[in-house]
Protein backbone atom coordinates (compact mmCIF):
# COMPACT_ATOMS: atom_id res chain seq x y z
CA UNK A 1 0.00 0.00 0.00
CA UNK A 2 2.79 2.42 0.89
CA UNK A 3 4.93 1.29 -2.01
CA UNK A 4 3.82 4.27 -4.08
CA UNK A 5 4.73 6.87 -1.44
CA UNK A 6 8.14 7.37 -3.09
CA UNK A 7 6.61 8.22 -6.42
CA UNK A 8 3.96 10.41 -4.91
CA UNK A 9 6.48 12.42 -2.90
CA UNK A 10 8.84 12.79 -5.87
CA UNK A 11 5.92 13.90 -7.95
CA UNK A 12 4.85 16.39 -5.33
CA UNK A 13 8.33 17.86 -5.07
CA UNK A 14 8.55 18.27 -8.83
CA UNK A 15 5.07 19.80 -8.92
CA UNK A 16 5.78 22.31 -6.17
CA UNK A 17 9.09 23.16 -7.81
CA UNK A 18 7.41 23.85 -11.14
CA UNK A 19 4.60 25.88 -9.61
CA UNK A 20 6.96 28.12 -7.70
CA UNK A 21 9.43 28.45 -10.58
CA UNK A 22 8.59 32.11 -11.27
CA UNK A 23 9.28 33.03 -7.66
CA UNK A 24 12.65 31.44 -7.08
CA UNK A 25 13.96 32.03 -10.59
CA UNK A 26 13.55 35.75 -10.00
CA UNK A 27 14.85 35.72 -6.42
CA UNK A 28 17.58 38.20 -5.75
CA UNK A 29 17.15 39.85 -9.11
CA UNK A 30 15.56 43.24 -8.56
CA UNK A 31 13.95 44.74 -11.59
CA UNK A 32 14.81 48.42 -11.93
CA UNK A 33 11.97 50.61 -10.73
CA UNK A 34 10.32 52.44 -13.58
CA UNK A 35 10.95 56.15 -13.93
CA UNK A 36 8.59 57.33 -16.64
CA UNK A 37 10.01 60.11 -18.70
CA UNK A 38 7.84 63.22 -18.85
CA UNK A 39 9.99 65.00 -21.36
CA UNK A 40 7.80 65.50 -24.43
CA UNK A 41 7.42 68.71 -26.43
CA UNK A 42 3.84 69.26 -25.22
CA UNK A 43 4.74 68.72 -21.57
CA UNK A 44 7.77 70.98 -21.89
CA UNK A 45 5.39 73.74 -22.98
CA UNK A 46 3.15 73.36 -19.93
CA UNK A 47 3.52 76.16 -17.39
CA UNK A 48 2.73 73.74 -14.55
CA UNK A 49 3.66 70.13 -15.19
CA UNK A 50 0.37 68.74 -14.04
CA UNK A 51 -1.82 66.05 -15.59
CA UNK A 52 -5.62 66.36 -15.66
CA UNK A 53 -5.68 64.97 -12.12
CA UNK A 54 -3.06 64.76 -9.37
CA UNK A 55 -0.05 62.54 -10.13
CA UNK A 56 -0.78 60.13 -7.29
CA UNK A 57 -4.33 59.72 -8.48
CA UNK A 58 -3.30 59.16 -12.09
CA UNK A 59 -0.70 56.63 -11.02
CA UNK A 60 -3.19 54.59 -9.05
CA UNK A 61 -6.37 55.08 -11.02
CA UNK A 62 -5.64 55.91 -14.67
CA UNK A 63 -7.07 52.58 -15.76
CA UNK A 64 -10.34 53.20 -13.93
CA UNK A 65 -10.43 56.71 -15.34
CA UNK A 66 -9.93 55.43 -18.88
CA UNK A 67 -12.51 52.72 -18.42
CA UNK A 68 -14.93 55.36 -17.22
CA UNK A 69 -14.14 57.58 -20.19
CA UNK A 70 -14.82 54.68 -22.52
CA UNK A 71 -18.27 54.15 -21.04
CA UNK A 72 -19.12 57.82 -21.04
CA UNK A 73 -18.03 58.46 -24.62
CA UNK A 74 -18.97 55.25 -26.38
CA UNK A 75 -22.16 54.36 -24.56
CA UNK A 76 -23.53 57.68 -23.34
CA UNK A 77 -22.23 60.10 -25.96
CA UNK A 78 -20.76 62.35 -23.27
CA UNK A 79 -17.39 63.57 -24.21
CA UNK A 80 -16.31 66.26 -21.78
CA UNK A 81 -14.54 65.42 -18.55
CA UNK A 82 -14.63 67.90 -15.71
CA UNK A 83 -11.51 67.40 -13.62
CA UNK A 84 -11.52 67.98 -9.88
CA UNK A 85 -10.01 71.43 -10.42
CA UNK A 86 -12.94 72.31 -12.69
CA UNK A 87 -10.94 72.26 -15.94
CA UNK A 88 -12.63 70.53 -18.87
CA UNK A 89 -11.05 67.99 -21.18
CA UNK A 90 -12.20 65.98 -24.17
CA UNK A 91 -12.30 62.33 -23.16
CA UNK A 92 -10.06 60.86 -25.82
CA UNK A 93 -6.95 58.72 -25.69
CA UNK A 94 -5.68 59.93 -29.06
CA UNK A 95 -6.76 63.53 -28.88
CA UNK A 96 -6.12 64.29 -25.22
CA UNK A 97 -3.77 61.82 -23.47
CA UNK A 98 -1.37 61.21 -26.34
CA UNK A 99 -1.01 64.89 -27.07
CA UNK A 100 1.15 65.21 -23.96
CA UNK A 101 2.28 61.62 -23.50
CA UNK A 102 3.68 61.16 -26.96
CA UNK A 103 6.46 58.90 -25.67
CA UNK A 104 4.66 55.61 -25.26
CA UNK A 105 7.79 53.47 -24.90
CA UNK A 106 9.05 55.68 -22.09
CA UNK A 107 5.85 56.72 -20.46
CA UNK A 108 3.54 53.71 -20.78
CA UNK A 109 5.57 50.62 -21.57
CA UNK A 110 8.13 51.04 -18.79
CA UNK A 111 5.60 50.69 -16.01
CA UNK A 112 3.42 48.19 -17.81
CA UNK A 113 6.42 45.93 -18.35
CA UNK A 114 7.52 46.37 -14.76
CA UNK A 115 4.05 45.55 -13.47
CA UNK A 116 3.66 42.72 -15.96
CA UNK A 117 0.43 44.01 -17.44
CA UNK A 118 -0.28 44.11 -21.13
CA UNK A 119 -3.23 46.39 -21.83
CA UNK A 120 -4.50 45.76 -25.35
CA UNK A 121 -5.50 49.38 -25.96
CA UNK A 122 -2.97 49.64 -28.75
CA UNK A 123 -4.56 47.10 -31.03
CA UNK A 124 -7.18 49.75 -31.85
CA UNK A 125 -6.04 53.06 -30.42
CA UNK A 126 -3.23 54.44 -32.49
CA UNK A 127 -0.14 54.97 -30.44
CA UNK A 128 1.56 58.31 -30.92
CA UNK A 129 4.51 58.58 -33.26
CA UNK A 130 7.40 58.88 -30.86
CA UNK A 131 9.15 62.21 -31.08
CA UNK A 132 12.62 62.51 -29.85
Amino acid sequence: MYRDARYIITGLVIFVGLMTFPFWSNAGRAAPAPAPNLDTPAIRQLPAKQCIEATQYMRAYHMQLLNDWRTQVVRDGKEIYVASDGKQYTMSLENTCFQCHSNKAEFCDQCHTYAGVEPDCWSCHIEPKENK
Partner: protein
Amino acid sequence: METSRRNFLKLGGAWALGLAILPAVKGFAANNPEHLVNPKAMAGKRWGLVIDMQKCWPRYQAGCRRCFDTCRREHNIPDIGNKKEEIKWIWTEPYGDAFPDQQHELMAEDIKNNPFIVLCNHCDKPPCVRVCPTRATFKRQDGIVMIDYHRCIGCRYCMAACPYGARSFNFRDPRPYIKELNPAYPTREKGVVEKCTLCVERIDTGLPPACVEVCPAKAITFGDLEDPSSEARQLLKNRYTIQRKPELGTHPSIYYIV
Protein backbone atom coordinates in the same frame (compact mmCIF):
# COMPACT_ATOMS: atom_id res chain seq x y z
CA MET B 1 -18.93 32.12 16.52
CA GLU B 2 -22.47 31.51 17.55
CA THR B 3 -24.89 32.96 15.10
CA SER B 4 -27.49 34.52 17.23
CA ARG B 5 -30.24 36.81 16.13
CA ARG B 6 -28.36 39.62 17.87
CA ASN B 7 -25.14 39.00 15.89
CA PHE B 8 -27.09 38.75 12.69
CA LEU B 9 -28.69 42.12 13.28
CA LYS B 10 -25.35 43.67 14.21
CA LEU B 11 -23.80 42.43 10.97
CA GLY B 12 -26.79 43.69 9.03
CA GLY B 13 -26.39 47.07 10.66
CA ALA B 14 -22.71 47.28 9.73
CA TRP B 15 -23.53 46.26 6.20
CA ALA B 16 -26.23 48.93 5.91
CA LEU B 17 -23.87 51.56 7.30
CA GLY B 18 -21.28 50.52 4.71
CA LEU B 19 -23.83 50.89 1.93
CA ALA B 20 -24.85 54.29 3.26
CA ILE B 21 -21.33 55.69 3.25
CA LEU B 22 -20.28 53.90 0.03
CA PRO B 23 -21.09 56.84 -2.25
CA ALA B 24 -19.00 59.14 -0.05
CA VAL B 25 -16.07 56.71 -0.06
CA LYS B 26 -16.37 56.20 -3.79
CA GLY B 27 -16.61 59.93 -4.36
CA PHE B 28 -13.46 60.45 -2.38
CA ALA B 29 -11.55 57.67 -4.12
CA ALA B 30 -12.63 58.68 -7.61
CA ASN B 31 -12.22 62.43 -7.18
CA ASN B 32 -15.91 62.68 -7.94
CA PRO B 33 -15.50 63.52 -11.60
CA GLU B 34 -18.23 64.84 -13.80
CA HIS B 35 -18.92 63.95 -17.40
CA LEU B 36 -20.78 66.32 -19.64
CA VAL B 37 -22.27 66.32 -23.08
CA ASN B 38 -20.41 68.68 -25.37
CA PRO B 39 -22.47 71.89 -25.45
CA LYS B 40 -21.99 71.93 -29.22
CA ALA B 41 -23.39 68.40 -29.62
CA MET B 42 -26.36 68.02 -31.92
CA ALA B 43 -29.47 66.93 -30.08
CA GLY B 44 -32.00 64.76 -31.85
CA LYS B 45 -34.49 62.03 -31.08
CA ARG B 46 -34.03 59.91 -34.18
CA TRP B 47 -31.32 60.83 -36.64
CA GLY B 48 -31.76 59.80 -40.23
CA LEU B 49 -30.76 60.55 -43.80
CA VAL B 50 -32.66 61.33 -46.96
CA ILE B 51 -30.59 60.44 -50.01
CA ASP B 52 -31.56 62.06 -53.29
CA MET B 53 -30.23 59.68 -55.94
CA GLN B 54 -31.25 62.02 -58.74
CA LYS B 55 -28.73 64.52 -57.42
CA CYS B 56 -26.06 61.89 -56.86
CA TRP B 57 -26.11 60.05 -60.18
CA PRO B 58 -24.77 62.73 -62.52
CA ARG B 59 -21.76 63.16 -60.21
CA TYR B 60 -21.37 59.49 -59.36
CA GLN B 61 -21.28 58.58 -63.01
CA ALA B 62 -18.53 61.15 -63.45
CA GLY B 63 -16.50 59.27 -60.86
CA CYS B 64 -17.45 61.12 -57.70
CA ARG B 65 -16.79 58.88 -54.72
CA ARG B 66 -16.40 61.67 -52.20
CA CYS B 67 -18.69 60.23 -49.53
CA PHE B 68 -17.00 56.80 -49.62
CA ASP B 69 -13.48 58.17 -49.72
CA THR B 70 -14.03 60.62 -46.88
CA CYS B 71 -15.67 57.98 -44.71
CA ARG B 72 -12.81 55.57 -45.39
CA ARG B 73 -10.19 58.14 -44.45
CA GLU B 74 -11.96 59.49 -41.36
CA HIS B 75 -12.65 56.10 -39.84
CA ASN B 76 -9.55 54.18 -40.83
CA ILE B 77 -11.50 51.68 -42.90
CA PRO B 78 -9.13 49.13 -44.41
CA ASP B 79 -9.05 48.16 -48.05
CA ILE B 80 -8.49 44.41 -47.83
CA GLY B 81 -8.74 44.03 -51.59
CA ASN B 82 -10.85 40.90 -51.54
CA LYS B 83 -14.63 40.73 -51.72
CA LYS B 84 -15.08 38.10 -49.06
CA GLU B 85 -13.28 40.02 -46.35
CA GLU B 86 -14.31 43.48 -47.48
CA ILE B 87 -15.02 46.02 -44.74
CA LYS B 88 -17.73 48.43 -45.81
CA TRP B 89 -19.54 51.26 -44.07
CA ILE B 90 -21.06 52.99 -47.08
CA TRP B 91 -21.15 51.47 -50.55
CA THR B 92 -23.42 50.97 -53.56
CA GLU B 93 -25.87 48.29 -54.62
CA PRO B 94 -27.92 47.98 -57.79
CA TYR B 95 -31.64 48.74 -57.37
CA GLY B 96 -32.65 45.09 -57.44
CA ASP B 97 -30.38 44.24 -54.52
CA ALA B 98 -31.18 47.32 -52.48
CA PHE B 99 -34.95 47.17 -53.01
CA PRO B 100 -35.66 43.54 -53.96
CA ASP B 101 -39.38 43.72 -53.31
CA GLN B 102 -39.95 47.02 -54.98
CA GLN B 103 -39.10 46.17 -58.56
CA HIS B 104 -40.88 44.97 -61.64
CA GLU B 105 -39.66 43.83 -65.01
CA LEU B 106 -40.51 47.08 -66.76
CA MET B 107 -38.67 49.44 -64.39
CA ALA B 108 -37.26 52.64 -65.82
CA GLU B 109 -33.80 51.85 -67.16
CA ASP B 110 -31.98 54.60 -65.29
CA ILE B 111 -33.32 53.45 -61.94
CA LYS B 112 -32.71 49.80 -62.65
CA ASN B 113 -29.13 50.28 -63.79
CA ASN B 114 -27.90 53.00 -61.49
CA PRO B 115 -25.96 52.46 -58.24
CA PHE B 116 -27.76 53.20 -54.97
CA ILE B 117 -25.79 54.45 -51.98
CA VAL B 118 -26.40 52.11 -49.06
CA LEU B 119 -25.23 52.01 -45.47
CA CYS B 120 -26.47 50.88 -42.08
CA ASN B 121 -30.08 52.04 -41.84
CA HIS B 122 -29.90 52.84 -38.12
CA CYS B 123 -33.22 51.07 -37.89
CA ASP B 124 -35.75 52.21 -35.33
CA LYS B 125 -36.44 48.55 -34.48
CA PRO B 126 -32.97 47.12 -35.10
CA PRO B 127 -32.82 43.32 -35.07
CA CYS B 128 -29.04 43.48 -34.65
CA VAL B 129 -29.50 45.10 -31.22
CA ARG B 130 -32.01 42.49 -30.17
CA VAL B 131 -29.71 39.58 -30.85
CA CYS B 132 -26.37 40.92 -29.59
CA PRO B 133 -25.59 38.82 -26.50
CA THR B 134 -23.07 41.27 -25.03
CA ARG B 135 -24.96 44.50 -25.71
CA ALA B 136 -21.99 45.59 -27.77
CA THR B 137 -24.53 46.65 -30.36
CA PHE B 138 -26.96 49.11 -28.89
CA LYS B 139 -29.26 51.93 -29.88
CA ARG B 140 -28.47 55.36 -28.54
CA GLN B 141 -31.08 57.80 -27.24
CA ASP B 142 -30.82 59.64 -30.54
CA GLY B 143 -31.60 56.56 -32.62
CA ILE B 144 -28.07 55.81 -33.77
CA VAL B 145 -27.20 52.11 -33.75
CA MET B 146 -23.68 51.76 -32.40
CA ILE B 147 -21.15 49.01 -31.87
CA ASP B 148 -18.95 49.17 -28.81
CA TYR B 149 -15.84 47.44 -30.10
CA HIS B 150 -14.61 47.02 -26.54
CA ARG B 151 -17.44 44.61 -25.91
CA CYS B 152 -17.87 42.87 -29.25
CA ILE B 153 -16.90 39.21 -29.00
CA GLY B 154 -17.22 38.60 -32.72
CA CYS B 155 -20.04 36.09 -32.49
CA ARG B 156 -21.65 37.66 -35.59
CA TYR B 157 -25.23 37.17 -34.44
CA CYS B 158 -25.80 40.75 -35.51
CA MET B 159 -24.59 40.02 -39.01
CA ALA B 160 -27.02 37.17 -39.28
CA ALA B 161 -29.81 39.37 -37.95
CA CYS B 162 -29.22 42.40 -40.16
CA PRO B 163 -31.31 42.02 -43.30
CA TYR B 164 -29.29 44.68 -45.12
CA GLY B 165 -25.79 43.20 -44.98
CA ALA B 166 -24.70 46.41 -43.33
CA ARG B 167 -22.08 44.82 -41.10
CA SER B 168 -18.60 43.58 -41.82
CA PHE B 169 -16.41 41.21 -39.88
CA ASN B 170 -12.70 41.75 -39.34
CA PHE B 171 -11.18 38.45 -40.37
CA ARG B 172 -7.71 39.86 -39.85
CA ASP B 173 -5.89 42.77 -38.30
CA PRO B 174 -7.00 45.69 -40.48
CA ARG B 175 -4.04 47.98 -39.70
CA PRO B 176 -1.77 46.95 -42.58
CA TYR B 177 -4.60 47.56 -45.05
CA ILE B 178 -5.29 51.15 -44.09
CA LYS B 179 -3.90 53.44 -46.75
CA GLU B 180 -3.64 56.69 -44.80
CA LEU B 181 -3.88 56.28 -41.05
CA ASN B 182 -5.98 58.96 -39.35
CA PRO B 183 -4.26 59.27 -35.95
CA ALA B 184 -7.29 61.00 -34.42
CA TYR B 185 -9.55 57.94 -34.80
CA PRO B 186 -9.02 54.36 -33.59
CA THR B 187 -8.79 51.36 -35.86
CA ARG B 188 -10.52 48.06 -35.21
CA GLU B 189 -8.91 44.74 -34.41
CA LYS B 190 -9.23 41.23 -35.67
CA GLY B 191 -12.43 39.52 -34.56
CA VAL B 192 -14.88 42.40 -34.21
CA VAL B 193 -17.81 43.44 -36.33
CA GLU B 194 -18.03 46.97 -37.65
CA LYS B 195 -20.32 49.24 -39.63
CA CYS B 196 -21.39 52.85 -40.17
CA THR B 197 -21.89 54.78 -36.92
CA LEU B 198 -23.52 57.78 -38.59
CA CYS B 199 -20.39 59.64 -37.42
CA VAL B 200 -21.38 59.81 -33.74
CA GLU B 201 -17.98 61.34 -33.02
CA ARG B 202 -18.96 64.27 -35.23
CA ILE B 203 -22.59 64.55 -34.12
CA ASP B 204 -21.43 64.64 -30.49
CA THR B 205 -19.24 67.64 -31.31
CA GLY B 206 -21.81 69.46 -33.39
CA LEU B 207 -20.92 68.35 -36.92
CA PRO B 208 -23.11 66.51 -39.43
CA PRO B 209 -21.94 63.10 -40.73
CA ALA B 210 -18.89 63.39 -42.96
CA CYS B 211 -20.62 61.99 -46.06
CA VAL B 212 -23.33 64.62 -45.73
CA GLU B 213 -20.78 67.38 -45.39
CA VAL B 214 -18.55 66.45 -48.31
CA CYS B 215 -21.16 65.58 -50.94
CA PRO B 216 -20.64 68.17 -53.68
CA ALA B 217 -24.16 67.58 -55.01
CA LYS B 218 -25.78 67.95 -51.59
CA ALA B 219 -27.49 64.66 -52.30
CA ILE B 220 -27.55 63.51 -48.66
CA THR B 221 -29.68 65.35 -46.12
CA PHE B 222 -29.23 64.72 -42.42
CA GLY B 223 -31.90 65.46 -39.85
CA ASP B 224 -34.03 64.51 -36.89
CA LEU B 225 -36.90 62.39 -38.16
CA GLU B 226 -38.92 63.17 -35.02
CA ASP B 227 -38.67 66.89 -35.61
CA PRO B 228 -41.31 67.96 -38.16
CA SER B 229 -39.39 71.14 -38.93
CA SER B 230 -36.13 69.38 -39.82
CA GLU B 231 -34.82 69.53 -43.35
CA ALA B 232 -35.13 65.77 -43.66
CA ARG B 233 -38.78 65.83 -42.66
CA GLN B 234 -39.47 68.62 -45.15
CA LEU B 235 -38.04 66.44 -47.91
CA LEU B 236 -40.08 63.46 -46.73
CA LYS B 237 -43.18 65.61 -46.78
CA ASN B 238 -42.69 67.05 -50.23
CA ARG B 239 -41.02 64.27 -52.19
CA TYR B 240 -41.84 60.65 -52.92
CA THR B 241 -39.43 58.50 -50.92
CA ILE B 242 -38.78 54.81 -50.40
CA GLN B 243 -37.05 52.76 -47.71
CA ARG B 244 -35.14 49.51 -48.00
CA LYS B 245 -37.19 46.37 -47.25
CA PRO B 246 -39.95 48.16 -45.31
CA GLU B 247 -41.89 44.89 -45.19
CA LEU B 248 -39.47 43.53 -42.59
CA GLY B 249 -40.56 46.07 -40.02
CA THR B 250 -37.09 47.21 -38.97
CA HIS B 251 -38.11 50.81 -39.71
CA PRO B 252 -34.98 52.08 -41.46
CA SER B 253 -34.00 55.70 -40.82
CA ILE B 254 -32.48 56.08 -44.30
CA TYR B 255 -34.85 57.25 -47.04
CA TYR B 256 -34.35 57.45 -50.78
CA ILE B 257 -35.62 59.86 -53.38
CA VAL B 258 -35.44 58.00 -56.70
